[in-house]
């Protein structure tokens, strides 16, 4: 049985990102003949003998005309062991907004470094954003090793520099791999040019890395999405997707907000009843007691979530008009929709240097900062660092209906 790994890459063409993705897709046979023909044809028309693999991911007319990537593109490839969904995020235009979007669903991020230049500001930004978005697995891809004569000393220096950076991050698993995406060294097969390196090639690592931590969480979480009622069969069930841990029949659960307790009487699927559902599975739950449960409620087993009308969160701002104290927005967290008022923008982060500018501030487009919010009714959440599914929210401008902010709940201090 194959499982699913969602990964994100970030970087610019200069790092060899497109070449790396092209290589992965090509070697995993996810680029088909007509797509390759198209790339070769367009590349030739533009006067290039080498196929420009960026054309595979740059899908929009404006992107191809301007030679830039303006939006996250999703790519799919598979090996006999795993299926991969790759969110390819552009490195320049609107990079924070795009990278945050791509990283929000990723289990793993590949941070690309040019071996000649080592850890640069962009490396720090990418690694920091991956960490902020709760990605627990990083691959430091030290690329273009062919241009530094495959030297171990260069690689060791990059790894040491990145190690100092990684200490400031919340990423428990960092694996560095020397490679040449252009020549295919250490992408699918281990490289003879890099015989001093005894770790896995990139694809080998992607196939093997264990990423399903959300199932191991202690407290099961189940945001109620939709109530299924059927009069003919007198059926009433609470539909949703398990958002952490394993939900089991017989579990004592709190219904939040409110805090009433009941027991999971049954877990239904289209195929019949099951005894347990892991994080990620969509099911329908029946409860032992006839209590009022609706969309937006959270069923929680194990350690109690935070339930409050105030939250502190790291917010990534995505709108032209800045986020300021006093701003009012619609807030959606899991299946709850409430209204929120910004009490304070406590600080703004310098993503390149990982330092915070304290004091009252405002967040401009692509800024990230710490924000205190008051919400219109009690909201049950977890710290994002504990559970991404129940610790994240979006802010929506109530006038334009645009999604303007991405929030990650912080533990109360």
């Amino acid at each position, binding site marked *: 049985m194959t499982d699913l790994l969602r990964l994100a890459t970030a970087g610019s063409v200069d790092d060899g990102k497109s070449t790396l993705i092209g290589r992965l897709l090509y070697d995993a046979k996810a680029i088909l003949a007509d797509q390759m023909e198209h790339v070769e044809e367009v590349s030739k028309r533009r006067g290039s003998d080498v196929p420009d693999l960026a054309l595979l991911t740059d899908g*929009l007319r404006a992107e191809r005309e301007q030679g830039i990537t303006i939006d996250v593109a999703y790519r799919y490839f598979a090996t006999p062991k795993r299926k991969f969904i790759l969110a390819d995020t552009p490195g320049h235009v609107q990079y924070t907004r795009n990278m945050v979007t791509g990283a929000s669903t990723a289990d793993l991020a590949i941070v690309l470094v040019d071996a000649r230049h080592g850890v640069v500001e962009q490396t720090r930004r990418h690694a920091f954003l991956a960490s902020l978005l709760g990605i627990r697995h990083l691959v430091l891809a030290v690329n273009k090793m062919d241009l530094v004569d495959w030297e171990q000393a260069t690689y060791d220096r990059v790894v040491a520099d990145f190690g100092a950076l990684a200490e400031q991050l919340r990423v428990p698993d960092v694996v560095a791999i020397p490679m040449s995406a252009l020549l295919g060294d250490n992408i699918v097969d281990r490289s003879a040019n890099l015989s001093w390196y005894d770790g896995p090639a990139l694809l080998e690592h992607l196939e093997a890395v264990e990423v399903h931590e959300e*199932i191991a969480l202690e407290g099961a979480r189940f945001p109620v999405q*939709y109530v299924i009622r059927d009069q*003919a069969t007198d059926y009433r069930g609470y539909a949703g997707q398990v958002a952490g841990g394993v939900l089991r029949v017989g579990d004592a659960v709190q219904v939040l907000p409110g805090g009433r307790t009941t027991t999971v009487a049954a877990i239904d699927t289209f195929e019949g009843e099951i005894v347990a559902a892991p994080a990620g599975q969509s099911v329908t739950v029946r409860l032992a007691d006839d209590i009022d449960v609706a969309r937006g409620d959270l069923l929680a087993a194990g350690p109690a979530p935070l339930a409050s009308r105030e939250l502190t969160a790291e917010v990534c701002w995505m709108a032209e008009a800045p986020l300021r104290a006093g701003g009012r927005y619609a807030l959606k967290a899991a299946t709850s929709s409430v209204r929120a008022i910004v009490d304070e923008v406590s600080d703004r982060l310098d993503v390149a240097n990982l330092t915070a500018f304290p004091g009252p501030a405002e967040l401009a487009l692509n800024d990230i900062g710490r924000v205190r919010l008051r919400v219109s009714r009690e909201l049950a959440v977890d710290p994002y660092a504990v559970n991404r599914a129940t610790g994240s929210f979006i802010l929506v401008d109530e006038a334009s209906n645009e*999604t303007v902010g*991405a929030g990650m709940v912080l533990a109360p201090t």
Partner: protein
Amino acid sequence: MSGTSVRTLTHLQALESEAIHVMREVAAELEHPVLLFSGGKDSIVLLRLAEKAFRPARFPFPLMHVDTGHNFPEVIEYRDRRVAELGERLIVASVQESIDTGRVKEQTGPRASRNQLQTTTLLDAIEEHGFDAAFGGARRDEERARAKERIMSFRDDFGTWDPRRQRPELWNLYNGRLRKGEHVRVFPISNWTELDVWQYIAEEQLEVPNIYFSHEREVFARDGMLYATSDHMELMEGEEPFTTRVRYRTVGDMSCTGAVQSDAPDLESVVTEIAATRITERGETRADDRVSEAAMEDRKVAGYF
């Protein structure tokens, strides 16, 4: 952990659960959704996902087919049977009617196709019924422009898609807030590949129209593709019909959907062929994408599926 051990979801289970989650979000947050059902493999998967999302209750939305009048008769027969089995309601929006009432003008000549005309019929039907969400079976792996599409994708009151101003889509938190006259297109199987769809059909033992399996058919070659001879297709000079064994990889209009030569008589052999293919499904069998480099993007901007 206590009790029975629980395994990580397989990739198909994970994709299935994601799609069910999307469908339930739409049912909960939007007022008048509709599910676009063509009788093709992707929308067949959508119907099974809707069963998994909402049974034992009925679907909280009707089904709708934009019927060009040039569909394969086998597919229309399958469509009606499947809808009857499910006991759900089907709305048929007819391109012929749009032509008859003068909303659109039929193309003429041997390359005439009703493919583009569907957009007007679709948008008219969405407006007439007051739909604010339309589920479609489009996938990101199908085509370059679709790779950039959101799972829940905003359309303004002209039905227009603006690829440069899409709402960011974070985690699984979809923003379905709309003003009157606007709607969202929702693609629950965005993250599925063609192979995933076939593996799922095989695993779920879903019936599909028989034209997806190898059968004898009278065809003619045009632009490197094999088209079925029919009343809807005018032959051009030098085009000689012949009979061979083919199957279809995609199901659209007879006028824009090509067949592939194949001896695959059943699901298992189709899955094997798809896994080994070196050409994309739309590249191999869809004339509507060949008009220009951005043919799909241009049609999507105008409101196409």
